[in-house]
């Protein structure tokens, strides 16, 4: 375990160079070293999606990603989703539509929605359901999350110039 590897990557737009043990998991790096506790840890088996982040725009379960593998990549977390002076459009939509309860799945759901809307700015309900089916929410029964994603699509479109 004495060997270290150096990685150079971006977290929410800020460049980071660091030395890590080769078996460091990205989730732990983000939570423990960068204090990004908004990235949630739950099953740590790549199933629930609470730890979802974007790696070069693609959603990934950070509990299943070795930190060395993001060398050279751009990582986006919930921490970078705000806008000057407040919430980003996806966050606003979840807040407004009540797309959360305990909130533990929420950062992951917000990241998933961000990626979905970049790929499909006007998703229909079927596509929304199919995308958010990669993450677990134990509280809401999902319908209010679907509503939030639909609303997020509207708010994101309004945000585009």
């Amino acid at each position, binding site marked *: 375990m004495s060997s270290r590897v150096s990685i150079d990557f971006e977290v929410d737009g800020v460049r980071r160079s660091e030395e890590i043990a080769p078996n460091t998991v990205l989730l732990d790096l983000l939570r423990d070293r960068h204090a990004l506790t908004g990235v949630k840890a739950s099953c740590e088996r790549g199933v629930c999606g609470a730890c979802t982040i974007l790696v070069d725009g693609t959603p990934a379960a950070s509990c299943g990603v070795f930190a060395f593998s993001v060398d050279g990549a751009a990582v986006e977390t919930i921490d970078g989703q705000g806008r000057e002076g407040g919430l980003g459009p996806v966050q606003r939509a979840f807040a407004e539509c009540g797309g959360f309860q305990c909130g533990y799945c929420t950062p992951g759901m917000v990241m998933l929605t961000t990626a979905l809307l970049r790929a499909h700015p006007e998703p229909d309900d079927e596509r929304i359901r199919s995308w958010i*089916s990669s993450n677990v929410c134990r509280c809401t029964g999902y319908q209010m999350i679907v509503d939030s994603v639909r609303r997020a699509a509207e708010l994101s479109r309004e945000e585009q110039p």
Partner: protein
Amino acid sequence: MTNQPAAVGTSARRHDAAAKVTGGALYTADVRLPGMLHAKVLRSPHAHARLRSVDATRARALAGVHAVLTRDELAGLSPTYGYFIKDQPVVAMDKVRYVGDVVAAVAAEDEATALRALELIDVVYEPLPDVPDVTAALAEDAPELFEEAPPGIVPPYGTGASGHLRPRRNVCYEFRYATGPADVWQECDHVFEDTFAFSRMNHFHLEPFVTVADVRGEQIEIWSSTQNPFPLRKELARVLRVGENRIRVHVPYVGGGFGAKHNCKTEPIAILLSRMAGRPVRYCLTTEEGFLTLSQHAAVLKVKTGVKADGTFVARESEVLLDAGAYSDGSPLVAEKAAYRMPGPYRWTHVKSSCACVMTTTTPAGPFRGFGATQSTWAGESQVDMIARRLGMDPYELRIKNLKRLGEPFVPGESGIDSDLAEGLDTVAGELGYHRRARTPNRGMGLAIGFKDGGGVNKPAQARVKVTANGAVYVNSGTVEIGQGASTTLCQVAAEVLGVPLEQVAYAPINTDVTPFDQGTNASSGMTVMGRAVLRAAEAVRAQVLEFAARQLGCEATALTLENWAVRRGDEAPTPLPGLIMKVFGGTGYEFSGEGFFKAPNSPEAPLDAPCVFWEIGWAGAEVEVDPDTGKVTVLQLVASGDVGKAINKLVCRGQDEGAAVMGLGQALFEEMRYDGSALLNGEALDYRVPMAEDLPERFVSVTQEQGHGPGPFGAKGAGEGAMVPVAAAIANAVHDATGVRVTALPLSPERVFNALHRR
């Protein structure tokens, strides 16, 4: 109250919205303290074994290990805990009783070191025969899980109810209830006896069980993901033999609980390790360990129902066996409720119920959303449909014929039913299109009514509301924000009373040293019990403020109204309060503070010692399609509805009903902890399937009824459990309607439905 109610009845944005959508919300799992160590535990590989020896010498010698806890370190403690029965040891003492039972614990620099240390603990087990299920545990020659009776109590009960400790081998508790003359069985034209099986779920809260403990000198401080900080504090004080005021419990946001996070879970080990190590300790379970910590109760339910030829219900007798797992946890209370709720929402001349908690060598079972009502409603509401079909009646008609009226007591000595049950059923039937349904092969519809008493038994709640000179309001209460939205709705109640905008009201964080006492965030009691305490506290503050202002203005307090932190007399221009207050108390300000208390009064006539606070009713309707070749059940429509009396916050109420209904959907169709003997087969996230968005029925509708008969503030009732309770029975009833075949065991898996279809 101001004339225009502004704060309640809205869809106001939740108080915790910004924190939660930004990832800024702090949970216990996020708490980090300087010098914090990490704990891991050694778990038994045996379902039942005597502990010959536990030797941690090698583990203690490992670099990075700061403390090791085994049975040898328990001297000076009362080392077992539980609700009514103190049978669960902090770490195993004489025996282990299920696969996963905790044998030893280590605190180390990091989790990896702690895990390595566990491998260095030498344990010699002497395996004993296991008792994997209720049948095995009740057998004549079954091995006893507890050779000696652990200390236990039976709470006071009123008319017709009784509790019994260890009535037979491997039964830790039995609750019995009876009312009305038993000779009415002779008047019944038909008597039906049916047996139902109920499978067990895992709570699967996303935030794991976790505690951070920091013991400094005599002060014990913990941050814990718990639903009941005050009873937890009391139990910890008993186990540790210290005063309750030596233990300070902080409760950050809780990432879901659904009943699991009550009383001692990760707390005793975290505290003891911190005390031994002299450093803060974080003890966080994995999801896999969560499966080994607590579950819902599997059950076998025998129901005998006597009716008249015209369908009038006469008598119902039931025997329920709960699989309590290896330790009693909340089982006695769940047994109480499973038996007591067996009559459901119907009128009977005679009722006799019993429920026994049977100990098995499996994960301990405890509180789970629905709390015994999910089990009793599964059996009761399935049987109502079976009886209707046997009598050639429509199940809807049979229900309508026998439902209790609004205000009719549930049983003698109980409070009256505070919902119009038929109105609720009609709402759901209408939304589903039940009466217009076309007869299509393999398609059918079913209805069910979930029934439970809500608000907890003998549950006191205290609250404090305080207001600064500038009109910033704090609500202090022990109700935990666990996702249900209480930190918003309780603030709405205070905002309404004080006539201030909701944004001006904050929900204070919970710290048991300063937060007023509360018995726990459970039993859907947040609004009907704590809500009333908050209402009274806010009214007390309002009275203080008005009296103060009246003195300053030289008028009667009754002549003044309060709005937007100003007082107004008749049509005069309002006088802002900040200036008035600072004139008297000085420019540094002042705080008005009011206390509120609520508890339903005790009554010896009430079977459970106090009449129920409110009745939590959930109505569900389902339309299904059954594939005869595979047995697969597709839910085409699910309609779920609760009566909240008055919605304090519409978004919050909707969220509670929908979340509950989808949990019921998982229970109905696939969610189940599967055992092979005493070995759990699917105790991890991938193999244990919870509902995902793709599992939602094509049409999923929730209806928040506001019938207005609730005892809570502004006519509110509670919510959160009701809409889960009837879902499984509604779906099974729809399957029966579709196929003519009855499935009496959950979940309604393709295999089970296929077998039922082909046994025909």
